[in-house]
């Protein structure tokens, strides 16, 4: 397990270095002055710029400039937003939790619906149930997410009026910002209308989370189906049925556990996909998350914000990726011994 952890840590460091390198080189690639792009000081005078240039080690070689940038990032200074002149770090602290909330809820929904459906399809292999599930999953990952979002808004919030169509919570409720995760903040607050606020926030969350969850859920269906079919063909299942276990016992005691392990391995990869879908969905549902903030900063050509947003969003994806790797290794002893990349 130690070697496994060291390998993962190694990969993690390598990735973070690459990502910071990418975001550092972006400041050169974006049009305009590199120093302004990296610090976001649009209105600074020449003297002020000289001081900032000093702190980014402008006189030195590219490598020393990169390390100066790295130390800025590590101390939480990602520059100012070029459009609003507020520190990027604060903006990210405000917007990232909303995205974390949306993506995690969507991930849970996707797994809760996708995996059991996939198992059912595999158990009833080559039947009508299997065909139906496969057809649904094909449609699910072919549907453009923005179109789905609009249809869902039209049906459930305009025509039926069941759920609100935009935002994270009604403006009537004032929730203190503690962890940033709204649902947890509401639980922590001592507001007398806590439960109403919680229900309201939940109602706001349902539609975007379901829209984000649909495509990953259909991929989980396929993953779970293949995993279960592989397990059902293996010898220990045959041995178990030879011992006289009923089909139900085999499925619950042996097949589901072993198939689950294989599905969990791929959760990390699917998560990247899910975050992209969440970015588009945030735009449609006006969800105050980092995806919408990032896309808006592209419209405003706010380069500092793009660099910071990219760095944070991809680190978030990668951290979840590594976490699922650890969970997988914790559940499956075979994976721990395996060499990286094999």
């Amino acid at each position, binding site marked *: 397990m130690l070697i496994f952890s060291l390998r993962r840590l190694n*990969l993690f460091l390598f990735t973070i270095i690459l990502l910071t390198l990418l975001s550092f080189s972006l400041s050169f690639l974006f049009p305009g002055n590199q120093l302004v792009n990296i610090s976001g000081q649009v209105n600074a005078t020449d003297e002020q710029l000289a001081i900032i240039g000093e702190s980014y080690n402008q006189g030195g070689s590219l490598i020393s400039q990169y390390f100066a940038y790295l130390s800025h990032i590590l101390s939480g200074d990602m520059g100012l937003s070029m459009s609003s002149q507020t520190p990027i770090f604060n903006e990210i602290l405000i917007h990232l939790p909303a995205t974390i909330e949306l993506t995690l809820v969507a991930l849970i929904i996707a797994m809760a619906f996708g995996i059991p459906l996939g198992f059912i399809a595999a158990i009833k292999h080559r039947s009508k149930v299997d065909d139906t599930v496969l057809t649904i999953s094909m449609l699910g990952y072919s549907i453009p997410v923005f179109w789905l979002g609009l249809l869902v808004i039209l049906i459930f919030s305009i025509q039926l009026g069941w759920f609100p169509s935009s935002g994270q919570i009604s403006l009537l409720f004032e929730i203190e910002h503690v962890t940033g995760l709204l649902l947890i903040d509401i639980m922590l607050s001592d507001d007398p209308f806590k439960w109403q606020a919680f229900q309201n926030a939940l109602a706001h969350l349902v539609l975007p989370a379901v829209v984000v969850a649909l495509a990953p859920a259909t991929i989980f269906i396929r993953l779970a189906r293949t995993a279960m079919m592989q397990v059902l063909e293996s010898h220990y299942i045959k041995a178990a049925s030879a011992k006289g276990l009923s089909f139900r016992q085999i499925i619950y005691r042996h097949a589901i556990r072993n198939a689950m392990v294989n599905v969990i391995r791929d959760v990390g990869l699917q998560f990247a996909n899910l975050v992209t879908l969440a970015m588009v969905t945030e735009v449609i549902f006006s969800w105050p998350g980092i995806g919408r903030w990032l*896309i808006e900063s*592209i419209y405003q050509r706010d380069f500092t914000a793009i660099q910071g947003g990219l760095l944070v969003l991809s680190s978030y994806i990668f951290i979840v990726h590594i976490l699922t790797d650890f969970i997988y290794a914790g559940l499956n002893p075979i994976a721990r011994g395996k060499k990286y990349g094999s």
Partner: protein
Amino acid sequence: MGREKTYQEEEFPTPLLQLWYNFKQTPVVMIGFGCYLFLIILAIFAPIITPYSSIENHLDHLLLPPSWHENGDVSFLLGTDNLGRDMLSRLMHGASLTFGLSFIVVLISLAIGVIIGSISALTKGVKSSFLNHFLDVILSIPSLLLAIVIVAILGPGLSNTLWAIVMVLIPQFIHITRNAVKEEFSKDYVLASRLDGASSIRILHYSIFPNIIEKLISQATLAQSAAILDIATLGFLGLGAQIPMSEWGAMLANGIEYFYIAPWTVYLPGLAILFAVVATNLVGEGMRHALKQRKES
């Protein structure tokens, strides 16, 4: 299949032909393939066969519903949008923008990816290991996010979007080519031609590419369905195709304001995207199924 055995000679179909024999067994896949061909033909001939130009305004027919609606007009089969442009013509032009361009984008990145992938498969050591790690990182960043970043560098516009998507798709082709070439290189028949004195380039050309092309094609169909969705999404976000262009995603974004009074301006482009992606996915699905069958037989 019924090929008559008139001659004693044994016939060995090429890997690609074998793939085709397996591919055409499934009826659903063949329907998808038919739709795919239809889209390709539409993409090529759209400018000739559309009833109107995609930007022509018919100011006395604004927001006309589709012709089966009681207020519809049969000369505008699928209705018109807010500027009186014929929806059918725009959708057909959109086929050559969204679907046709995604096809070209995939071809370009396939070519670049295969070249880099086969070079990297032939190198060993630190360089190769670095590339492996590098690809892992790039592949873990979602394609749309990367495309958005590249568009942010280049500035919005359809051609910039296309370059962005080309760059985003290259790593997966490198990855699959690299793995496939490495796998083939360890096989005995390659060793045989190596013993005959063939150079690496010659082995690649005569022995390896004919055997891995099916894997590349099946990856390419996957990539194309992603490319269609990415082009449409960027168009929808206003980062891709700009206003008068009839790219499906941009058309959809244009229709949002009139969603409630003229829902067809949103339904139809969305359905078109869905249709194109489903057709592409069906072809890809059939391809992978055929590959699996071939491996098992």
